[in-house]
């Protein structure tokens, strides 16, 4: 059996739940909720990779030297990733609104059938 930390476990669980929603659900908004959860999971994974036991946040005010801080790079990456995630979500939701206006449903199979 493999041993991983609880944070990794939580992150991977979120990724899997999100993936499940994307693959199995047919309601568009539900799929987008799943995508959002997946992104949160990935962000959590990145941040927990950067964590170092017993060190504090990378803000080097008094009392915190360069040796007492956690890795700042994953945090910078996640800042970017969060913003990109919300951008994708907004785009996807506006496409979903157009689809609802055209077809009157959010069920993706139904939309496919109506489109022929």
């Amino acid at each position, binding site marked *: 059996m493999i041993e991983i930390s*609880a*944070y990794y*476990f*939580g992150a991977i*669980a*979120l990724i899997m*739940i*999100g993936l*499940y*929603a994307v*693959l*199995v*659900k*047919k*309601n568009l*908004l*539900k799929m*987008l*909720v*799943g995508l*959002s*959860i997946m992104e*949160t999971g990935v*962000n*959590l994974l990145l*941040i*927990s990779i*950067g*964590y170092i036991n017993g*060190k*504090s*946040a*990378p*803000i080097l005010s008094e009392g915190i030297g360069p040796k007492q*801080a*956690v890795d700042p790079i994953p*945090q910078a990456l*996640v*800042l970017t990733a*969060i*913003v990109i*995630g*919300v951008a994708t*979500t*907004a785009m996807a*939701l*506006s496409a*979903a*609104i157009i689809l*609802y206006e055209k077809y009157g449903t*959010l*069920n*993706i*199979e*139904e939309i*496919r059938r109506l489109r022929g």
Partner: protein
Amino acid sequence: MNCISCINYIIIGIMVLSAVFAVEWRDLLAAVVGMAAVSLFASLLFFFLQAPDVAMTEAAIGAALSGAVFIFAIKRTRRFETEEEEKPGWWVRW
């Protein structure tokens, strides 16, 4: 095991649970609230993992704004999943 890590485990547990609920609830408004809860708990975890910048951003953008955008979209579409949509299926075809 000291008590700080107890709190971590509890928060991770609640976070995963709310993710499951967010995916399974048929009321989409509730699902969005569940999603925002996942983001909030994640931002708490970011705080524990010594990432206050990310925690702030996640709370402001990940939870609040993307939740709000979802709610507007629900307002312009519909609120409940139908019976038909409960059945699983993979819709992307070639």
